[in-house]
C-alpha cells in the first residue's frame, strides 16, 4: 500500500500547484503509515524531480518518452494507472487542473476508485469513513464527501494547502515505462499554443490577480490594470461582461461560468460584484475592491476597499508598489 502523487511539470520545472499536491500526498501517506511516490508528467528535469524530496516524496517515477511532454489524456491515464499498480497505490493525489481532472476521471473508472475533485483540505477518517471536503455550487458552498471504494483519487484545488519545504531532502528518481502503444495517443495534440501571460504566470496558477470590470470603460484603459499587475507580478483577469464584449479574451473571465481562482490576493477594479462573479473568487485569501460606488455589493465580500475612481486610484497603487520595491 502506498500513496501515488501525480506531478505536472512544464519547461523542466514542477508546477507550483503540483508542489502542493506532492505535499498533500506526503501528509496523507504519513497519516496512513506509508510512503508517497510521485509519477511525473510533462517536461521535467531530473534535478527538479529530485527536489520533490522537500515536499516529502521519497521516490519519483518518470517516463522520458518524447510524446509525453505534452498532455495526452489516453497516454497519461495508462501511464499513471501502470504506476498505481506497480506501487499498489491506495490513494492517488493529483491537481484539480484540466489535466489532473481529465486523467483522474478516466483513472477512477479504470481502477474502480472513488474520485473527489476540487478538494480543499486534507482527508479525515471518521467511523471508518474516508472523508474529504470539497468546493461545490461554484464556490458558493462546500461539501463533505465520503469516498466509498477501497481506492481513492483526490484532486486538490490550488492554494488550498501550504507546500512543504524540508530543505535538503531529495527524492530518488527512477525511470519508468508503461509500454504505451500508438492507440494511447489518439488525442495527442497536433499543435500547442501558449498564451502570453501579463504577470508571467497563467491565471489559474497565479498567486496574485488584478481584475477589471465594466468600470474600466474600455479595453484601451487596460494598461492601468496591466501596470499594477506587472508591478505586483500578478496575472490579469476580467469579469464576464468584459469578456462578453471582447474587451479581453475569454480565458481571463473569472466567475461562475469562467475560471474559479483562489489566489492569495485578488484586486477587483470597477467590478460591482454580481453573485456569479463572487462565486469565482470568494476562495481568494485577501480580496481588495476598488469601486466608485460605495453601494457596490463587492465591498461586502472584501477585506480591503477603496471607494474611488479606478482611473485615479490604480496609478497611485502602481506607484506605491514600485516605491515599496
Amino acid at each position, binding site marked *: 500500500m502506498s500513496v501515488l502523487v501525480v506531478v505536472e511539470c512544464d519547461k523542466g520545472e514542477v508546477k507550483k500547484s503540483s508542489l502542493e499536491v506532492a505535499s498533500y500526498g506526503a501528509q496523507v501517506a504519513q497519516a496512513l503509515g506509508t510512503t508517497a511516490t510521485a509519477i511525473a508528467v510533462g517536461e521535467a528535469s531530473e534535478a527538479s524531480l529530485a527536489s520533490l524530496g522537500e515536499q516529502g516524496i521519497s521516490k519519483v517515477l518518470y517516463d522520458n518518452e518524447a510524446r509525453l511532454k505534452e498532455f495526452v489524456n489516453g497516454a497519461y491515464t495508462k501511464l499513471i494507472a501502470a504506476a498505481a499498480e506497480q506501487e499498489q497505490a491506495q490513494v492517488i493525489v493529483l491537481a484539480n487542473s484540466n489535466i489532473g481532472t481529465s486523467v483522474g476521471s478516466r483513472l477512477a*473508472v479504470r481502477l474502480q476508485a472513488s474520485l473527489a475533485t476540487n478538494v480543499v483540505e486534507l482527508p479525515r477518517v471518521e467511523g471508518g469513513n474516508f472523508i474529504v471536503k470539497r468546493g461545490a455550487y461554484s464556490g458558493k458552498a462546500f461539501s463533505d464527501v465520503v469516498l466509498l471504494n477501497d481506492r481513492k483519487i483526490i484532486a486538490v484545488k490550488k492554494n488550498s494547502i501550504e507546500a512543504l519545504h524540508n530543505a535538503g531532502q531529495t527524492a530518488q528518481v527512477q525511470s519508468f515505462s508503461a509500454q504505451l502503444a500508438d492507440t494511447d495517443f489518439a488525442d495527442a495534440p497536433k499543435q500547442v499554443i501558449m498564451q502570453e501571460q501579463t504577470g508571467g504566470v497563467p491565471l489559474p496558477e497565479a498567486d496574485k490577480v488584478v481584475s477589471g470590470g465594466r468600470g474600466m470603460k474600455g479595453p484601451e484603459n487596460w494598461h492601468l490594470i496591466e501596470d499594477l499587475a506587472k508591478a505586483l507580478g500578478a496575472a490579469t483577469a476580467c469579469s464576464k461582461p468584459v469578456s462578453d464584449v471582447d474587451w479581453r479574451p475569454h480565458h481571463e473571465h473569472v466567475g461562475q461560468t469562467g475560471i474559479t481562482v483562489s489566489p492569495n490576493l485578488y484586486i477587483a477594479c470597477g467590478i460591482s460584484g454580481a453573485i456569479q462573479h463572487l462565486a469565482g473568487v470568494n476562495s481568494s485569501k485577501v480580496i481588495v475592491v476598488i469601486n466608485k460606488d460605495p453601494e457596490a455589493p463587492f465591498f461586502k465580500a472584501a477585506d480591503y476597499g477603496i471607494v474611488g475612481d479606478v482611473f485615479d486610484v490604480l496609478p497611485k497603487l502602481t506607484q506605491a*508598489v514600485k516605491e515599496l520595491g
Partner: protein
Amino acid sequence: MKFLVCISNVPDTTTKITFTPDNKELNKAGVQFVINPWDEYALTRAIELKEQLGGSVTVLNVGEADTEPNIRKALAIGADDAIRVNAKPTDAFFVAQQIAAVAKDGGYDVILMGKESIDYNGFQVHGMVGELLGIPTVAPAMKLDMSGNTATLEREIEGGKEIVEVQTPFVVSCQEPMCEPRIPNMRGIMTARTKPLKVVEATGQGAATQVTEYALPPKKQGVKLIDAENAGDLIRLLRNEAKVI
C-alpha cells in the same frame, strides 16, 4: 451523424445557495432550475453541427420527473428527441454509467456535455463516460469542428490550448467560446411539446461517493476602507498586515 447531448438540471446562476436544516441537501424553496450553462454550449454546438452535416440530436438527462421542463426547453432549442433516465443523479460515476449505457444502446457518434455542472462542479462525467465506452474524451473544448468522421478541437490546458484531432465516436466537454448558446423561439416551443421524450430506468452499480454534509463559506470580517486620496496606504497594509505581497 448522431449527436447525444447530456444536460443537467441546476439552480440558476443568480441563486443564493442555502441548505436544509440538517445541511444534507440544497434548500430548493424558491430556487429556479435551469439547463446547466456549460451544457448549453454543448446543445447549441450539436444543433449547429447537425444543421451543417445532417443527422440527429438527442438530449439526455439523468433526473427525476421535475427535470422535464428543462428537457422540453432543450427540445424547443432544437434537439430532435429526448431520453430521461429516471433516477436521482447521486454522483458522477452513477450518472456516467447511465450515459454510457444510453450511448452504447443508441450508437451515437459524438457525445457532448458541459465541462462541469455548476452545482456539483465535478469535471468528471465526461472522462468517466469515455473510459466506460473505451473512446477518447476531449475536455474542456473551446472549439469543435467536424469534417466527415474527423473532429478538430481546441482543448484548454492551463495557460494555453492544444489543437486535437479525433475520430468518431468520442466524448467532448464544452465551454465558452464554442458558440453562442441559443434560446428557444415560439415555433420551437410549440414543436417541442410533441417531440418524443422516452423515460428509461437506471442500470449499473450505485455511486462511488456520498455527500454527508454541506456548509457555506465562512463570512468575511468586514471591509477595511482606505481613503482614495491615500491609496498607497493599501499597498503598505497588504505588505505589513495581510502579508500577501
